[in-house]
């Protein structure tokens, strides 16, 4: 199970330099079990902050994040996170990185190794098991990060612009890979991006956030059939959805960028 509820969540940052910054302003929405939910929004609107709250790496100023009705009070292996930067452990080989989560718990060595091997293979890095992260390209590193999270078998996958730094082809490939795995594993996913194509290609539902302070200003139920192929981006309904999100985002991005009128 992995139902995520965001209930009236607000988040403020107090710093001496900038005063109080309201990053999230009583945000509410619910992601049912096994849904692929995508969040898009202008830069700085609080997308990363929201994922951090669900992960339990930070505390809400008010409101609750809940997983299956239980209030999040700290980080846990039930909520795995993939970061925008490749946060692999540079001192561990690919296989050891993927084994990291399982090795923290009392799994038998055999089970641990099998799990790791399975997911290293699933992301297509079987030949690189014994390589160190520095020896991998950015796309490969992010595949390892994905395998590392999956090997831990979380109920909820939190993904913060995981493919943001990748080139176009690699990103498309990674999206296909992720969808394939998600269709098999059936996990709840909270995926942050500012790429609209990516949002629509992956998501069951797309939440559009406002400029800071972040609120949900639109919810799009993506009625595109699954399994999705990459050429779906040219279909009429895809383009319609895209137009709608672009219009919503455009006015929000304007707001954030308008600090210096020309």
């Amino acid at each position, binding site marked *: 199970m992995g139902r995520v509820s965001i209930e009236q969540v607000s988040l403020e940052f107090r710093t001496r330099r900038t005063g109080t910054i309201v990053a999230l302003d009583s945000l509410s929405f619910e992601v049912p079990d096994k849904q692929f939910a995508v969040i898009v929004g202008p830069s700085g609107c609080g997308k990363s902050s929201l994922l*951090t709250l669900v*992960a*339990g*790496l930070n505390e809400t100023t008010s409101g609750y994040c809940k997983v299956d009705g239980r209030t999040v009070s700290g*980080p*846990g*292996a039930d*909520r*795995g*996170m993939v*970061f925008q*930067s490749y*946060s692999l*452990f*540079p*001192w*561990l080989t690919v296989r050891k990185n993927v084994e*990291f*989560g399982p090795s*923290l*718990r009392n799994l038998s060595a055999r089970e641990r190794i099998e799990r790791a091997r399975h997911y290293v293979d699933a992301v297509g890095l079987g030949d690189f098991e014994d390589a*160190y*992260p*520095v*020896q991998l390209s950015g796309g490969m590193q992010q595949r390892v*990060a994905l395998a*590392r*999270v999956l090997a*831990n078998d979380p109920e909820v996958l*939190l993904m913060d612009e995981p493919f943001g730094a990748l080139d176009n082809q690699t990103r498309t490939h990674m999206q296909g890979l992720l969808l394939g795995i998600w269709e098999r594993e059936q996990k709840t996913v909270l995926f942050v991006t500012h790429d609209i194509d990516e949002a629509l290609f992956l998501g069951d539902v797309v939440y559009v956030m406002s400029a800071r302070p972040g609120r949900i200003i639109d919810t799009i139920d993506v009625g595109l059939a699954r399994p999705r192929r990459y050429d779906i981006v040219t279909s009429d309904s895809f383009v319609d959805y895209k137009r709608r999100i672009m219009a919503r985002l455009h006015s929000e991005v304007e707001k954030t960028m308008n600090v210096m009128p020309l």
Partner: protein
Amino acid sequence: MAAGLLSRLFTPKRPIAKNIEIGIGVTVAMSLFVAWCLLTYTGLVSASFLPAPDAVGAAFVEKLSDGSLLRHTRISLYEIYTGFFLSSLIAVPLGIFMGSFRIVAATIEPIVNFMRYLPVTALIPLLILWIGIGFEEKVAVIFLGVFFQQIVLIADVSAQVHEDLFKASYTLGATRRQVVTRVLVPATMPGVMDTLRITMGWAWTFLVVAELVASSSGLGYMILQAMRGLHPATIFVGILVIGFLGLVTDLAFKYAKALLLPWTTVR
């Protein structure tokens, strides 16, 4: 062609062929040696000022055969490794904690920063008063000279560990203790190795200073005695031996890093 080679050799960070690298090193060393020969054998510089290579060689053989060179070297090595080991033993864990735990930093940072700017050489007279001029005093000088620098450098290494690594391990289910033992400590190891390597060089300096000030044995003492007896060749033997030991130690650190932390050297 030549221009191509030159521009390749002077491109920042660009690796150059191993044999070119070794060739350059050997050439530099040989040139220095040739310059030394030229200066001395032509009589350009007087022998009491700069002894010729053969005089240094003779002094080396003499000190080796009467056993004094080995004795002084062994004593110096023993002093330096004891002081350095004791210092590292405490500074490494303490530095790692100081860099990552505000509470530890708040506790020891004021003392550390006070002591850090105190040249250890200024403490030597006091140490002599307190513990004499023997082995313990040398160890104390090295310890005090190296310890506070090590702590600060290692704390910095620890503070630089990327927070994303902690976040990632928390979301993989790590406890705080596991984050320390399985993420913080391994993540600091390359920086710790570099710090040890650098501070080892300083330890040699402090040791020799301490031995020059007051001692009855060690390479610094041997050098001082040679000065008093007007034996510049023996002074050179002492200097060359210290340089050689430094070089060997440095190489040992380099190989240890490649061996223990293979991920820092693979490409």
